[in-house]
């Protein structure tokens, strides 16, 4: 529709990069630097303050152990058995030394200091142990490093020998690795929190500039409906906002809308004057329809009714509510299986492992099933109310989970939480779809997914520490508070005084699967192959590993909840790091099938560090590798669904809706499958079993999924 002879308007300059993003990045780097130094100093200060308390406490422990051992040895001495001929002294001291992690050595010497029996690394190779050597001789091994508690054996006045119990005087510093990891976790959580807060603060402070930028974005997309927000002039202390500038921008928008309104009126007049059957009138009507399809103008009726024009919505403000809500649920991740297991005695006919899987499975099932109806609900009642209802349900569910008195109550309240969780997530996706166009939807979804991943990193590690220090109940209640805060945040930040934009058909179907599209999708065999051999096994592994097997396995190995949280955090850290890279490379190299197969095999390989070793580094490495493998799969899988739909001439949004529903049903199967295998074998073997399922499926997928070399744009929904 360009006029011949008239040059097309010059393209507007595009920004080189996002200056707000650059500012937030610089601030985050500065903050991380200060925070690391400050947190390190704080830890050193605490260590220095508490260290003097430990030595007397350790000495008392050594004293108690020494007294009990002395009593046992004295029984032998009382019946005239000399120390060097007393049987079982060696095993006795070895057993005692092994039983106490804080005792460095136990030794029995004769009156001259010759060792009769000894256990503990510091004494290896020593033959004699004169009292002077322990506290300050030149031996080099026992100098100054130990608190040596000595007990006379036999008669106290002329002892038959001496019992030495040694504790490491640097025990606290050496035992503080766990604490250092906890502090590091606090730093990571603080950095992510600061990042979230910074996004909010900077975007709030620059809201006028951002509102203008959104206006410009929309105008470039041909959408002229929006108006300047009424209260943005000079908002946030911005120095250069002026009424004249605003009037200029308003004038441009009003002008183009007025011209369109006048044009519509002229076409309507022409219809009245010449009749609708006139060929020229038809041409004018077609021209107007083409204009309406290409551009979006204000509805003249809306203006006459006095309704305000919608102002552009900055989706950064969606991040915080979504982050808070997901954080509320993620807090309970490290201990939920252990919490569920505490109700196992109620159902003696079910094994504890099956009992553990029930609330998790039903949560996933309820989440999956609630998605279509949740989408319809949020469309009917409005996004704001729907988000608030979801947040309230989540809050109620978490609060009541804290006070669950039976397994049935636990399951019911977990299902209520799942309903809220599903409703909030589907509503948040709806908000993104409502307020984005095809051009910027991927950015909006990235914002949403960024909040999910940040909550995934912060939640388990914080929840584990809080549960260790304050208990399960307090952690659930904190989660309930956060869920409530997310509901309030969405009302205050995002939707206060904002009318919902008109829903488009695409937006209405984007968040829920259309039932009629399932059959045509399945006619292309690639879709069922992708679902059965990749989407479902991947989600089975995700829920089985992350929500069930890892917490239970680590609990069984004696890990604290904070340690479990740290291990679970590794999954999300790997996802944050690898996901964007995998998405870009799989698109660039057109190797989506390869990435999916590699991710499936990677899932199998990720079991190796847990199955093959009991070392401390095994679980975090395995889960980091597992997160990496899952990150390889997510984006290519999603792109293939979109590609299949596009090639089959089917609506992409419906295909994506089905894909999400099917993979979430796979997620519901995960805990049951894992616990069934675990009941028959062990947690480690259950992991291996699920890993084999993923690895085998990946190979089959590689063989059965046929590739068509069609370049596909990155889909707009996630």
């Amino acid at each position, binding site marked *: *529709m360009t*006029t011949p002879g*008239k040059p*097309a308007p010059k393209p*507007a*300059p595009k*920004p*080189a990069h996002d200056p707000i993003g*650059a500012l937030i990045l*610089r*601030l985050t780097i500065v*903050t991380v630097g*200060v925070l690391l130094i*400050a*947190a390190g*100093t*704080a*830890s050193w200060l*605490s*260590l220095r*303050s*508490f260290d*003097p*308390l430990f030595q007397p*406490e*350790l000495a008392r*422990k050594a004293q108690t*152990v020494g007294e009990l051992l002395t009593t046992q040895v004295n029984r032998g001495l009382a019946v005239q058995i000399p120390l060097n001929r007393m049987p079982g002294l060696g095993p006795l001291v070895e057993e005692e030394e092994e*039983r*106490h992690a*804080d005792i460095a050595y136990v030794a029995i010497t004769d009156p001259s200091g010759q060792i009769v029996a000894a256990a503990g690394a510091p004494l290896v190779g020593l033959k004699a142990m004169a009292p002077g050597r322990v506290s300050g001789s030149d031996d080099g091994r026992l100098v100054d490093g130990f608190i040596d508690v000595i007990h006379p054996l036999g008669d106290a006045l002329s002892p038959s020998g001496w019992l030495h119990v040694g504790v490491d005087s640097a025990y606290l510093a050496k035992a503080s690795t766990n*604490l250092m990891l*906890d*502090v590091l976790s606090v*730093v990571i959580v603080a950095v992510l929190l*600061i990042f979230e*807060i910074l996004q909010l603060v*900077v975007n709030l402070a*620059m809201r*006028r*500039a951002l509102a*203008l*930028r959104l206006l410009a*974005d929309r*105008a*470039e997309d041909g959408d002229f409906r929006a108006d300047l927000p009424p209260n943005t002039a000079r908002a*946030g*202390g*911005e120095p250069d906002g002026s009424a004249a500038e605003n009037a*200029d*921008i308003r004038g441009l928008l009003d002008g183009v809308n007025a*011209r369109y309104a006048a044009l519509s009126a002229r076409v309507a007049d*022409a219809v009245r004057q010449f009749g609708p059957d006139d060929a020229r009138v038809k*041409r*004018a009507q077609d021209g*107007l329809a083409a*204009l309406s399809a290409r551009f979006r103008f204000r509805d003249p009726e809306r203006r006459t009714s006095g309704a305000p024009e919608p102002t552009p919505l900055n989706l950064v403000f969606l991040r915080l509510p979504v982050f808070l809500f997901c954080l509320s649920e993620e807090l309970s991740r490290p201990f939920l299986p252990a919490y569920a297991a*505490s109700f196992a005695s109620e159902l003696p006919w079910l094994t504890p492992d099956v009992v553990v899987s029930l609330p998790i499975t039903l949560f996933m099932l309820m989440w999956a099933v609630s998605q279509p109806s949740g989408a319809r609900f949020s469309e009917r009642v409005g996004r704001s109310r729907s988000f608030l209802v979801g947040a309230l349900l989540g809050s109620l569910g978490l609060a009541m989970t804290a006070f669950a008195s039976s397994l049935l109550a636990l399951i019911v309240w977990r299902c209520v939480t799942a309903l809220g969780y599903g409703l909030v997530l589907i509503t948040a996706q709806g908000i993104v779809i409502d307020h984005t166009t095809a051009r910027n939807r991927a950015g909006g979804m990235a914002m949403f997914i960024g909040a999910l991943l940040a909550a995934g990193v912060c939640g388990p590690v914080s929840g584990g520490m809080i549960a260790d220090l304050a*208990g*399960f109940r307090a952690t659930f209640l904190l989660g309930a508070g956060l869920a409530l805060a997310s509901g309030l945040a969405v009302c205050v930040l995002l939707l206060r005084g904002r009318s919902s934009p008109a829903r488009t058909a695409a937006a209405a179907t984007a968040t829920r699967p259309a039932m009629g599209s399932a059959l045509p999708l399945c006619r292309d065999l690639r879709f069922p192959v992708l679902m059965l051999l990749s989407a479902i096994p991947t989600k089975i592994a995700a829920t089985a590993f992350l929500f069930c097997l890892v917490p239970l396995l680590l609990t069984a190995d004696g890990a604290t909840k904070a340690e479990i949280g740290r291990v679970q955090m590794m999954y999300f850290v790997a996802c944050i790091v690898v996901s964007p890279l995998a998405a870009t490379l799989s698109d660039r190299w057109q190797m989506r099938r390869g990435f999916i197969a590699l991710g499936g095999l990677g899932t199998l390989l990720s079991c190796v560090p847990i199955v093959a070793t009991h070392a401390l580094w095994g679980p975090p490495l395995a889960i980091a590798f597992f997160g990496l493998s899952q990150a390889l799969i997510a984006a290519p899988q999603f792109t293939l669904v979109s590609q299949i739909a596009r090639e089959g001439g089917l609506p992409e949004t419906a295909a994506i809706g089905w894909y999400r529903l099917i993979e979430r049903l796979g997620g519901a199967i995960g805990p049951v499958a894992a616990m069934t295998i675990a009941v028959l074998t062990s947690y480690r073997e259950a992991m291996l079993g699920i890993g084999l399922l993923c690895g085998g499926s990946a190979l089959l997928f590689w063989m059965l999924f046929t590739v068509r070399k069609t370049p596909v744009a990155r889909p707009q929904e996630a």
Partner: protein
Amino acid sequence: MIVGGGLALRTGAVIAATVALAVLLSVILAGLKFEQKLRDITSSRLWVVADEMRRRVEYGLTLGLDLSELVDVQSQVERAASGAEILGVEVVDESRRVLFAADRAAIGQPTPIHWGLESGLVGDGVHQQIVGDALILGAPVHNSFGQAVGEVILRSSLGGLRGRIAKVEAELANGTFILDAVTGLVTLIAAFLTVRYGAVQFRRGTAPSVIAPHSAVRQRLGHGVAVADQAMAELERDLDSLTLREAKS
């Protein structure tokens, strides 16, 4: 616009508050962890006592006697309870009735101690819970067939330990306050300078044009409007010709 003193101060204040909070949380976390570690050491010391008591009771059971028939356990219980900070030692049967106790008045009564959800396990199935200032340990007693027939329960005061910790915490609080204040100030200055650096860059024209909204927005908006105007102009010409022809006819 924008990257002026107001934003710099506001952003700096928010970051400083969050960093100060994180530092405070680190100290609190470290304090709680160290306190927990100290309690663990105390608990493991008392576990040694409870375990020894259990061993002695189990040794008696190997002789074929019933738990309630081990008469020498009463004196052992009283001896164990004489230790510093130990509040009481009891031996209960499987119905949780007290058979032997340092406090003889408790004998024959049901024990008020039950192991709930918040109780933990310390070595060899020994239960542990903290109620107020009391640390309670329970070591299960097994007969020769491995069946649990009772429990040795030991209660100890954590009052002394908590007093010592409170003293250290009071000293630590002063240091933390200074550290927090310094950290907050440094963060505020660092954030302020970072934002101001952005402002200087902007004034020198090195920042991207999008920061200056009016000129850039005006240009982009103008471009969008121009495209729409062009499209509308064509339709207007069609309508003009229609009206003109009608007027001529």
